[in-house]
């Protein structure tokens, strides 16, 4: 078997084709939304939304409504409550987050206990099951990409403004509160659709690690987003191939590769910094 055969082989299975399509779209979505998450310091919110939507998924299962809806309601609700709790009490944002998401998560654990048969689906929710993406899930992802794309086309400059200088934007008359809520909505949406790929525990990596890696090399917004998308695409594709041939869980493999990219980029960046510093000293 030559290398081309090896690269093509996975595509003979429908589920692998759907998996590749799914992770590619998710990588694009996370590249866009993740850059904003990283710039605004919302990484914890992404994590909290992911854990909280687990509670929403369990309740949706029990009630019998589409799981994505339950996840979205719980996820977005948590993001909004965090903002409210932060305003109303003297608690730090990350403390409020931890309280809310463990609360929503424990509701999920309790709900699960009432139906013993669910335990099997549970681990797939937590570690993800990109190989079992159904066509309907793909449509959710496509819809999320379209929504994020439209929002960015219309409001990109404003969102960038509030991300870098919220008080300046406020003074310039932008509805900062609404734009922030919109951004939280996008975070919730992309977390919920990406849950399928890597699961509740690792989803935050898909959002912030590519953006964090890209931010080591550039400070320009357009390049950050493009870089994050590229980095995400490389890791998700390589991760899917690796998991196909090594029989490892795809979600964890993808995140391990993302982290590896970040580690390598960090070392490259630090070495370059040191070299330029030395060069500067010699020149002086």
């Amino acid at each position, binding site marked *: 078997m030559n290398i081309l055969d090896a690269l093509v082989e996975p595509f003979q299975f429908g589920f692998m084709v759907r998996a590749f399509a799914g992770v590619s779209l998710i990588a694009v979505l996370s590249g866009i939304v993740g850059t904003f998450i990283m710039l605004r310091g919302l990484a914890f919110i992404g994590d909290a939304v992911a854990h909280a939507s687990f509670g929403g998924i369990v309740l949706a299962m029990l009630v019998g409504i589409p799981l994505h809806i339950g996840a979205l309601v719980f996820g977005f609700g948590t993001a909004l409550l965090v903002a409210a709790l932060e305003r109303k009490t003297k608690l730090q944002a990350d403390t409020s987050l*931890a309280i809310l998401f463990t609360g929503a998560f424990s509701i999920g654990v309790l709900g699960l206990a009432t139906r013993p048969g669910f335990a099997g689906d549970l681990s797939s929710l937590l570690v993800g099951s990109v190989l079992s993406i159904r066509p309907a899930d793909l449509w959710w992802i496509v819809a999320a990409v379209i929504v994020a794309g439209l929002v960015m086309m219309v409001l990109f400059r404003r969102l960038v403004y509030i991300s870098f200088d919220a008080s300046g934007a406020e003074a310039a008359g932008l509805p900062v509160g609404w734009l922030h809520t919109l951004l939280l909505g996008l975070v919730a949406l992309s977390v919920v659709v990406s849950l399928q790929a890597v699961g509740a525990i690792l989803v935050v990596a898909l959002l912030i690690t590519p953006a964090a890696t890209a931010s080591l090399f550039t400070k320009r917004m357009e390049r950050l987003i493009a870089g994050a998308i590229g980095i995400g695409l490389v890791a998700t594709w390589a991760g899917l191939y690796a998991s196909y041939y090594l029989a490892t869980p795809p979600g964890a493999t993808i995140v391990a590769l993302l982290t590896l990219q970040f580690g390598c980029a960090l070392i490259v960046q630090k070495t370059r910094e040191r070299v330029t510093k030395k060069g500067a000293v010699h020149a002086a």
Partner: protein
Amino acid sequence: MLIEDFWVMLTAGLVASSCGFIGVYLILRRMAMVGDAISHSVLLGIVLAFLATRILGGVWMFAGAAVAGLFATFLIQLLHRGGAREDAAIGVTFTGLFALGVVLLSLYAGDVHLDTEHVLFGELAYVPYDVLIWQSVELGPRAVWTVGAAFGLTLLVTGLLFKEFKVCAFDPAFALSLGIPVTLLHYVQMTLVSVTTVAAFESVGAVLAVAMLIVPGATAYLLTDRFGWMLGLSVVTGVVSAWTGYAVAVWLDVSISGAMATAAGAVFGLAFLFAPRHGVLPTALRRRRLTRGGTGAVA
């Protein structure tokens, strides 16, 4: 009350006390999510310890998990110093370590039943049946000894370094100017957090260990402005939530750790609404009384 109930309640109480105690420091130092990061990273330590020794459970696995937790805080500090935002540093670190743990597990220990669900949720109900035996004497459940030892260590170290920890929690810059080794103390404290989390999550699981670390401390934070009171109240609310949760779980036949965390959340909700000085309702009442009493002065 059956002896099994007693052991479960004792374990739950110890978990709540040790988590509630160290959690106060996490909240004051604004490190709530570090607890989350540690509790996820320990999976890698468990897997590595298992691959090295091929023994499930025991001292080595405990040590591996604790070291992995400490390693996570080290990495976070490193990335943060290197210029990453703190939340990004934490997110990258714990997801990376957790993912590595999952991948290694599937590559090298696929045949072993290292139950991820158990790691994530824990199971208090099985605590009484895993008994520690020393020279054919039954010493009670292993979990009671592990969590008890972790709590004892935390109390001992915190007792010895009480003033230093307190200064570092409130004003690290001042502590540094006094000549206190702030970084060293940071790692000592993170070791304690790591050991506490590992001991706790055997019984309540990784995600809900975070609840027991943060929620009672946050409740106490709303109830008082005095440090000593906060420590005490955090432990008390933790234990009350744990026991209430256990009673509810037995009554409704649901997951014990889930019910404990929900109870802790409910107690926090009460404090959020009714805490004398910082609660939402008393604050609103005071404001109303003020505007009514001295219309001219306040408006």
